[in-house]
């Protein structure tokens, strides 16, 4: 049995390891267009921001480890096409290669702006570690940066530019950072931090052209020209699935590959995982695309097990998420008020601002927790949080609560850890849940 992975990101490598673990006699081959696999691209902004001292720390395994484990990785190799009938792929420099099972993990691309000058040098799309190493040296001489649109990577990059002392202009047609995910009150401390650090933020404005002679010198915008030694793209993720599309594999409304819970595509011998595929949301039952590396890795493992002859299913997602934006942590689960309002969902909000440790313990930090509850069944449909610590663990916990379908009453009466250095007497989630219960029961 030969199992071929297209893509060497978390989905592809998760799939390769799981396929090998399921069928130890299978030949496992990974094709990647990049120079490396098994590194954390999510860490790149933090090396640029000097929180991490070296790109070497982002590598998780060496090329030799893959050779030793029997996973045959073809680096810097481009796959041109997939032939579903013949069960082959066309590989540059290798010709036609057969497969028994194919797993597509081709990831994502930045949505292009569709404006003049997008092919100039000096436009940075944060993704590949080797190019990030080159860009990092370039950043040493950069005085002015323009960040175009403020998705999650851009949020981290703005903070990185601030840490490096680079004069940064942020231009976004939307009204606040990550406005397709985060509520304005939750992201406000991040916006305020940037304002205090001197970031020039232009919300509701657009870059209309990128100008320069070979290399970027400035951008034209709806409010005038802005000087730029570098332009950093922060546009939304778009699924990279031209190969799948050209092969005739079914694509969904998100632009991602349609898969079932076994990660199987419209072709029974082809699987897909990660950002090139669309996944079902656990609350709305709608397809989503463009989640996190941990989702891609878990989906890859499911695809790998099934391609190897095993049986594993991936569950609909409830999307716990979190990130560090400068000094502030933000995070949540599924819906925020903005997204719930957008779909027209009926919800009640319970919220509080609590503390992360005992009030007298050094390092205690405030944390705001906002819970969204469906009044028809009293279940959690979303959460948003902002603080300086403890966001990730709470988001993970709420993810399990949502998946298990527990009611807000369970949270309002939850037990919690009280230990001065790590937890306050009152758990903010419990207080926010109690607030929601009071509203649901008409006591407020």
């Amino acid at each position: 049995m030969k199992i071929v992975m297209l893509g060497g990101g978390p989905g592809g490598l998760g799939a390769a390891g799981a396929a090998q673990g399921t069928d130890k006699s299978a030949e496992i081959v990974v094709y990647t267009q990049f120079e490396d696999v098994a590194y954390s691209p999510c860490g790149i902004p933090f090396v640029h921001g000097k929180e991490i001292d070296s790109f070497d720390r982002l590598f998780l395994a060496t090329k030799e480890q893959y050779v030793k484990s029997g996973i045959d990785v073809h680096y810097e190799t481009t796959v041109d096409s997939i032939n579903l009938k013949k069960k082959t792929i066309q590989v540059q420099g290798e010709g036609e290669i057969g497969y028994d099972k194919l797993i597509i993990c081709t990831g994502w691309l930045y949505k292009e702006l569709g404006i003049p000058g997008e092919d100039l040098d000096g436009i940075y799309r944060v993704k590949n570690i080797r190019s990030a190493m080159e860009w990092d040296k370039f950043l040493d001489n950069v005085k002015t940066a323009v960040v175009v649109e403020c998705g999650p990577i851009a949020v981290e990059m703005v903070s990185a530019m601030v840490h490096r002392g680079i004069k940064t202009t942020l231009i976004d047609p939307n009204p606040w950072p990550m406005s397709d995910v985060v509520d304005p009150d939750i992201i406000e401390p991040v916006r305020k931090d940037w304002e205090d650090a001197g970031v020039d933020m232009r919300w509701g404005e657009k870059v209309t052209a990128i100008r320069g002679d070979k290399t970027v010198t400035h951008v034209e915008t709806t409010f005038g020209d802005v000087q730029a030694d570098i332009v950093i793209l922060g546009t939304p993720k778009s699924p990279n699935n031209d190969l799948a599309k050209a092969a005739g594999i079914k694509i969904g409304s998100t632009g991602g590959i349609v898969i079932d819970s076994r990660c199987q595509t419209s072709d029974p011998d082809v699987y897909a995982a990660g950002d090139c595929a669309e996944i079902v949301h656990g609350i709305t039952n709608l397809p989503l695309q463009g989640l996190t590396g941990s989702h891609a890795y878990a989906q890859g493992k499911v695809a790998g097990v099934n391609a190897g002859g095993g049986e594993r299913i991936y569950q609909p997602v409830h999307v716990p998420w979190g990130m560090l934006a400068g000094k502030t942590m933000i995070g949540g689960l599924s819906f925020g008020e903005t997204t719930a309002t957008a779909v027209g969902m009926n919800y009640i909000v319970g919220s509080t601002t609590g503390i992360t440790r005992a009030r007298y313990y050094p390092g205690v930090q405030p944390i705001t927790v906002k819970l969204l509850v469906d009044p028809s069944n009293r279940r959690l449909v979303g959460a948003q949080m902002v603080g300086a610590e403890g966001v990730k663990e709470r988001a993970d916990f709420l993810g399990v609560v949502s998946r298990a379908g527990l009611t807000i009453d369970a949270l309002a009466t939850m037990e919690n850890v009280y230990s001065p250095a790590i937890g306050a007497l009152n758990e903010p989630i419990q207080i926010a849940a109690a607030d929601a219960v009071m509203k649901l029961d008409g006591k407020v």
Partner: protein
Amino acid sequence: MTFPQWIRTNSEHYLLCDAQDRMARSKGFNAPNKPRGLKDNIWRRVLIPVYHMMPWGLKKLVMQSIPGSHKKSWPRKNFRSK
């Protein structure tokens, strides 16, 4: 771009604009741009208000009708012990 992709992209964008506008007004934050041009106006002044007038059950039906992964098998595991 296929028709379902076009519908999803546009409806998502304009539903978000409308929701951001409501959020901004209720919480006192920066609002999104006002509709500009025919397409913006049709979506934000006609189609989005019509969508919001529909009951939640009908909204769900409309959203579920788009093609995609949700039409395939996605069984929910019961993680509780028996």
